[in-house]
C-alpha cells in the first residue's frame, strides 16, 4: 500500500491553517489545537505530524521515522500512509501545492 487515495510517496503536507500544532511541555507531547478543541498526539503521531512542514515528502517522513524508531521502513511505511490518510480525512493536514 504505497499509494493512498489522496497521496503518494512524493506528496508533501502542511498543517491546515485552522490548526495549531506544537509541543506542549505540560503534557509531554505534541498537541494539535483547533477552535475549542485539542488533540493530544502520541509519540509517533506527533513525530509524523511534526514532519508535515510542507518540505518533507512522505518518503522522507518514512525514512526519518525508521531511523528514529530503529524500525524497518517496510514496517513503518504502511502505518505512515495510513496515518496521513486519517489526518487528511480529519482535515488536520493539507497537500502542499
Amino acid at each position, binding site marked *: 500500500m504505497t499509494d493512498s487515495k489522496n497521496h503518494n510517496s512524493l506528496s508533501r503536507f502542511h498543517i491546515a491553517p485552522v490548526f*495549531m500544532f506544537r509541543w506542549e511541555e*505540560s*503534557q509531554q507531547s505534541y498537541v494539535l489545537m483547533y477552535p*475549542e*478543541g*485539542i*488533540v*493530544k498526539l502520541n509519540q509517533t503521531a506527533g513525530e509524523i505530524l511534526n514532519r508535515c512542514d510542507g518540505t518533507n515528502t512522505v518518503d522522507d517522513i518514512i525514512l526519518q521515522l525508521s531511523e528514529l524508531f530503529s524500525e524497518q521502513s517496510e514496517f513503518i511505511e504502511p502505518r505512515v500512509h495510513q*496515518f496521513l490518510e486519517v489526518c487528511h480525512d480529519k482535515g488536520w493536514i493539507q497537500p502542499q501545492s
Partner: protein
Amino acid sequence: MTKAGSNLSLDGQGNPVWLLLELTYKCPLKCAFCSNPTDLDAYGNELNTAEWKKVIHEARSMGAMQIGFSGGEPTLHKDLEELVAEANDLGYYTNLITSGIGLTRKRLENLKAAGLRHIQLGFQSDHRETAHWLAGVDCYDKKISIAREIKSLGFPMVLNVPISSINIHQVPGIIELATEIGVEYLELANVQYYNWALVNRNQLMPTREALEKAELQVAEARARLGDRITIFFVIPDYYEDRPKACMNGWGSIHLTIAPDGVALPCSQARAIPGLDFPSVRDHDLRWIWHESDSFNIYRGDSWMKEPCRSCSEKEIDFGGCRCQAMLLTGDAANADPACSKSPHHHIIQQAVAKALQTEQDHKHLIARDVGWVSTEVWHNDLDTN
C-alpha cells in the same frame, strides 16, 4: 455546557486545560436567554488589564492551552487586543466568543495581528425579524457583514446558533446561510435551561416533532455538503434519557474567571448557592484550583449519591450537570434530573409537558454557551511496541 462530538479523553493531569475569561458582563444586546447571571448588577468591580494578565500567566504555567475571551461582550474591553497578544505569546490557542456587535474591520485586523486564532460568532436566525426578537436589538445586517469580514481575514469561524422553539423551523435556512458565508463549524445547540433561559423555559422548549424534523434536516445537509462545513446539532437533554456529560467533570479541565475575578469551575456555577467561590484577587490560581472547597466539592465521584454512586455510567456523564441538579432538585449533589434513573426525573417530564401547553410567542431570548473544549488522545498503532 456540553456539545456534540465531544471526545473526552485528554485530561489536564489535574490541571486546567481550558481557561475562559469573561472580560465583562456588559453587552450591547438585550439577551433574554443569556447564560450570564440574572443578577448582573451585583458584580460591578471588574478586573483590570494587569490583573487579567496575571491570570493568563498563572493558568498557562499550570498547563492551560486553550483560552477563550468571552463576556458579556468581550469586544467592549478596550485592552482586548493586548490580552490576546499576551495569551498568544504564551502559546495559548486563542478563541474570541462574541456577538460581533463591537467588531469592525480595523478591530479584526488588529486582533489578527495580535495573534487571535478563531472567532465564535453568536447568531440567531437567517430571518432579520426573528434575529431581532431573539437578540432584542436589530443587529442582523451588522452580524452578516461582520461574519463576512471575519472570513475575508481568514479566521476559522464557528457560528453558534442557540436553537429553541422560536427558530428551530429555520434550521435549513441557517445551514444555507452558514455555508454561503463559508464558516467551518456550525453549532446548532438547543438552549440549555440555566439562568435567563430557565426563566423563559416555557417559551423556548421545542416539541419532540420539531426536534426530529430538524435532526433529519441536519442529516440531509451533512450528506449534501460533506466536509464543506461541520454541523453540530445538540438536542436538549430534556428530551433524552441521559444527561449531558459535564465536560470532564467538575474541576477537571475547565476554569472560568468571571468579570470580578471570581474563579468558577464553570460559567453557570454561580447558580449554586452556598458555594463560596474564591477570587483571583485574594488567592493565587493554583491554590484556588487545587485547594479551595468550591473546586473540590464535586471533583471525582466521592460526592455522588444514589443512583449515580453505583451507576455504571458515572464515568461517562459524571452524574450530569451540577447546576441543573441544583436548579431543579435543590441539591447540586443529586443526579441530574434529565437522567431517567433520577428520582427527580418527573420534574423534567412535567417541565416539558408544561412548556408544550404554554402558548409560545417570541420573547427576547439569547443564549451563550461557551467554555467547553473537545479533547481527545490520538493513538497510533506504532506505539504498541
